[in-house]
């Protein structure tokens, strides 16, 4: 409307000049678009709607916002290379505000808008209401980084898969690393009792370390909000024998305090932990930290053993900013897996996609070759990267793949 009005007010010469300009501008724009799409395959038909119930606000947004960026990058890449079954993907998000009560309503909204894939929060409690909503409509549900076997059939959700690392696997991997790579024989463990993930990691470490002939000299628990771990350290001192290694399972809320107090108490032994310590935002709490090792999804410092991962993080950094964690690569892997499953199933029905995902061993995904089975929709033996911090500098050491599956029986 406005533009027509403006043209009417112009002299014919000016209007003609403007028209020519518009033709030139349109031609330039078309050329730019064509150049940008150079080499890409075209997609046809209605887009496939990928609905993502994410924590875009609140305490968990710090993890979900970077993962959402990874979804966007993966969706762009998939669309650029011909889409899924010739159709493009369209990402639609709903905020669940880091609140479990918003999980199901947000999912229902996205399903009502025709989502053929529902992405849930990366946690059983926060994600399962959305997964159940998807399941009731025979829609596949995928969680990027849920680290529990419950995100799948054992949690009552046979159409739900996760690309996260299981706690047991991370603990077992660090036990193998401690035993085989470092020849540590005695360990003392400190476990954060607040989250199930930490208990699972601790069990994974305990089982594998003792299976490999190691001895656990003592195990202590603490709460992440504890103001001190002095009593635990007193009990460690009372053992009268220094352990070769300390296994700490916690996150930065309680873990930084624990590391700080351990080091201040004179325990300079290697401390082993998990991906909860990913990111360098916490290291100022223990300046110049050394002899610290943790399992992780990938290294975003440009030194990951995989060239693809390094290129991905360089792209990510250029597009967004330096990430705080590497778990976001599970977001990229999720979209890759959906494309593989849909193209194998030639269908978007949840049960067909599930059958496809269960029948593709060693799927070539960004997080490493991944296998799902009928009973477990999480890969318990996928590769991890072992990271170390020396002199305050994080560095990737090597990939570690478990020699056998962790026990799940207690």
């Amino acid at each position: 409307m406005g533009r027509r009005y403006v043209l009417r007010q112009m002299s014919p010469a000016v209007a003609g000049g403007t028209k020519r300009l518009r033709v030139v501008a349109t031609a330039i724009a078309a050329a730019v678009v064509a150049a940008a799409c150079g080499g890409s395959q075209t997609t046809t038909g209605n887009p496939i709607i990928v609905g993502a119930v994410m924590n875009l606000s609140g305490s968990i947004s710090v993890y979900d916002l970077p993962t959402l960026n990874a979804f966007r990058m993966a969706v762009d890449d998939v669309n650029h290379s011909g889409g899924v079954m010739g159709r493009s993907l369209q990402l639609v998000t709903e905020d669940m505000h880091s609140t479990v009560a918003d999980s199901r309503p947000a999912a229902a909204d996205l399903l009502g808008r025709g989502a053929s894939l529902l992405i849930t929060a990366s946690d059983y409690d926060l994600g399962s209401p959305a997964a159940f909503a998807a399941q009731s409509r025979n829609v596949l549900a995928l969680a990027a980084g849920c680290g529990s076997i419950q995100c799948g059939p054992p949690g009552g959700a046979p159409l739900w898969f996760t690309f996260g690392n299981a706690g047991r696997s991370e603990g077992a991997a660090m036990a193998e690393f401690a035993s085989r790579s470092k020849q540590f024989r005695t360990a003392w463990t400190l476990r954060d009792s607040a989250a199930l993930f930490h208990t699972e990691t601790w069990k994974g470490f305990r089982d594998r370390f003792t299976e490999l002939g190691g001895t656990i000299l003592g195990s202590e628990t603490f709460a992440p909000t504890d103001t001190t771990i002095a009593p635990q350290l007193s009990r460690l001192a009372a053992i009268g024998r220094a352990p070769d290694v300390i296994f700490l399972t916690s996150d930065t809320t309680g873990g930084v305090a624990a590391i700080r107090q351990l080091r201040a108490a004179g325990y300079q032994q290697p401390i082993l932990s998990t991906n909860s310590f990913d990111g360098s935002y916490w290291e100022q709490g223990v300046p110049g930290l050394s002899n610290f090792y943790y399992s992780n999804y990938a290294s975003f410092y440009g030194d990951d053993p995989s060239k693809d991962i390094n290129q991905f993080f360089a792209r990510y950094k250029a597009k967004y900013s330096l990430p705080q964690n590497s778990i976001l690569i599970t977001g990229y892997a999720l979209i890759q897996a959906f494309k593989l499953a849909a193209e194998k199933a030639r269908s978007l029905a949840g049960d067909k996609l599930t059958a496809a995902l269960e029948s593709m061993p060693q799927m070539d995904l960004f997080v490493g070759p991944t296998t799902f089975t009928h009973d477990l929709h999480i890969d318990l033996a996928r590769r991890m990267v072992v990271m170390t911090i020396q002199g305050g500098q994080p560095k990737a050491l090597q990939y570690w793949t478990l020699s056998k599956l962790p026990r799940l029986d207690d």
Partner: protein
Amino acid sequence: MISLQAIVDAVSLGGLYALAALGVALIFGVMRLINFAHGGLIMLSAYGLWLWSAYPVPLTILLTVGVAVVAALAMERVAFRPVRNADMSTLLVASFFVSSLLQNGWIGVYGSLGKSVSVFPGLLDRFDVAGLSIYRLDLVTLGTTAVLLATCSLVLTRTLIGLQIRAASENFVAARLLGVRADRVIPAAFAMSGVLAAPVAILLVARTGYVYPGIGLTPVLIAFLATVIGGMGNLLGAVAAGFVLGSLTTALQSFLPEAAAAYRDAFVFGGVLLVLVWRPGGLLPTKFEAERV
């Protein structure tokens, strides 16, 4: 030896709890308000440390105390004064609101990831005395608690405003009838609670090196329990109860088997329940509460 070490650990933790309890009990005494937003003051002081840790130590401490006092006065003026005469439950809801607002406001601005900061690292040095490991921080905690407790006592017993605060905490209506000005005495108590919140944050962060939006929640919960079992509004009772809770927590952590130690806090809260069954008015009930009970 582990028993003696446990006593050292207990006294250190108890001192921290006592400081937190003193701040909460002070406001309860004057206003009958369990101020859960006291945790927000601790959080703001802790983030102040993170922001200003590069400054000279006295300036850092001054700014950290300053931010807590200003925030305490602001919350009194904006949130609590308008509902001062309302029901106790209204005050409680208001304090939850302020607490949640401070915490989520902070998450909105700075995000939910914690910030790490190494303040006063020398405090984590330790020395051995007769086989016991003692951190400088333990001594500083104990010294700070003693100094602040003594200062509070002096202010409360030797100054006019202190006299008014005590009168108000015994019987607020009678005190007002005798000419105590509520608009003077309540902000004064809030300012004092701010002064008491800052050292909790400093001692906590010196030990943990980590600041996060929920950092004030545990101290304020313990302070609330200490206020209740200390005898609602009795300052000395709250401090004593702070030490009792610190000792109980340390004892359970030191002597429970590992499997049971994970449920340590359930035992602590169970102990609190037992105390209340035994003495419903708390360990040192105030006269005001005695009449009501």
